[in-house]
């Protein structure tokens, strides 16, 4: 194994320069709950780790009006302890609260959860459903992309080697909005999703769904944004027929593999069942809000 270099710059520019200047494989260290496992298991041989936790902007959780900016290195526990976040985005918090254990959530970040590139990451479908926009910094400045465009395959992201995820923006929510994330696992804690579903929706004054986003995890090579499933809800009162159509669209969009956690057929079925349940929770939350 190559001798490892650890750097903890306090500016984004310095962090980008370090990544640009290294020709070998690099790793960005936020919570470390995936990167240190990769190091321990010798999955990666990297000459450089850049710890981004000393960069203030990346640690902040800012609420401005109804909108949020979440630094890429803010931990799950920091989001759970935020005074308003759980009430404003309960579905995103559903996902965050399912990541690992208390010990893991004390370190793990939503930014890392998404950049680790697992199709089964618990916070990703909820963030996709929420319409989160990611800001990415690189040598040529900053760019914004929808969060669903980050993961492009298992363990793969669309970020260049010298780009760093800075933050997520979550829009202010209209009245009567609700979101939810559900995953299916054999155990309630310390498990990896067999299927995950995030649903985010908004109702008008008469209870008709005016906008919706639905995202599936662990049923394809990447988390999916499923517009057909959202279309099944929009324009309806989210009645039994709409929920049937939602479930059918979610199952149709699922393209899972067989593995030790579940068969392909089972995951396709569960995607529909969970989509229906998550939409029902999101609907209840929208009616309360």
């Amino acid at each position, binding site marked *: 194994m190559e001798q490892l270099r650890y750097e903890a710059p306090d500016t984004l520019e310095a962090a980008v320069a370090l990544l640009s200047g290294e020709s070998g494989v690099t790793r960005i260290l936020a919570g470390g709950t995936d990167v240190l496992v990769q190091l321990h298991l010798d999955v990666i041989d990297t000459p450089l780790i850049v710890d981004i936790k000393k960069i203030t902007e990346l640690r902040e959780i800012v609420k401005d009006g109804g909108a949020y900016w979440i630094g890429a290195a803010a931990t799950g526990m920091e989001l759970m302890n935020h005074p308003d976040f759980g009430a404003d985005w309960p579905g995103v918090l559903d996902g965050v609260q399912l990541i690992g254990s208390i*010990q893991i959530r004390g*370190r793990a970040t939503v930014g890392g959860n998404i950049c680790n590139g697992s199709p089964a990451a618990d916070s990703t479908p909820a963030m996709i459903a929420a319409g989160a926009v990611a800001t990415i910094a690189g040598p040529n400045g900053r760019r914004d992309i929808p969060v669903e465009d980050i993961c492009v395959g298992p363990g793969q992201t669309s970020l260049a080697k010298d780009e760093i995820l800075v933050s997520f923006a979550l829009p202010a929510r209209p009245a009567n909005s609700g979101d939810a994330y559900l995953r299916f696992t054999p155990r309630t804690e310390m498990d990896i999703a067999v299927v995950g579903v995030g649903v985010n929706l908004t109702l008008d004054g008469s209870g008709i769904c005016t906008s919706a986003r639905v995202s599936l995890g662990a049923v394809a090579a990447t988390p999916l944004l499923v517009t057909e499933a959202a279309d099944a809800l929009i324009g309806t009162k989210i009645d039994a027929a709409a929920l049937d159509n939602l479930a059918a669209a979610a199952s149709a969009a699922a393209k899972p593999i067989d593995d030790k956690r579940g068969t392909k057929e089972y995951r396709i079925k569960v995607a529909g069942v969970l989509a229906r349940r998550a939409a029902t929770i999101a609907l209840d939350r929208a009616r309360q809000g």
Partner: protein
Amino acid sequence: MARQYVTANINGEEIDFLCDPSQTLLDVLRDELQLTGTKEGCGTGDCGACSVTLDGVLVCSCLVLGAEAEGKTVETIEGMADGDELHPLQRKFIDHIALQCGICTPGLLVASRSLLEHNPNPSETEVRYWLAGNLCRCTGYQNIVTAVIDAAKEMRGN
């Protein structure tokens, strides 16, 4: 690259140490500082045997680099008893026979102390969820949960 020079507050004492950039905090505690109360189970954050607090936050020390401890406060099992006087959680673990082989015990005690700092009166369900990241293969958990609830009761003063 040269070894990294790190200063941290460990169990109330300012300590400086040298570590390789690839060494975890767990490696540093055990191999450099001889604080071997913290155990290595899985090394991948699944078992909680290496639990410590870092600036008051419960973490797996196997998933923290030693270099990351610079300027931080680390509390391990060695800092739990007050001299010869055991912490109430330690006494209750003995009273309720909440251990058998003992390798998970330091991590469970550190995690339980962190729980009671956040929630002095946890329900059984809250104890079980908080300790879900600490695996014990001997006890079946029942006596551990009983000990934590009993210690919480004593620490609340009733």
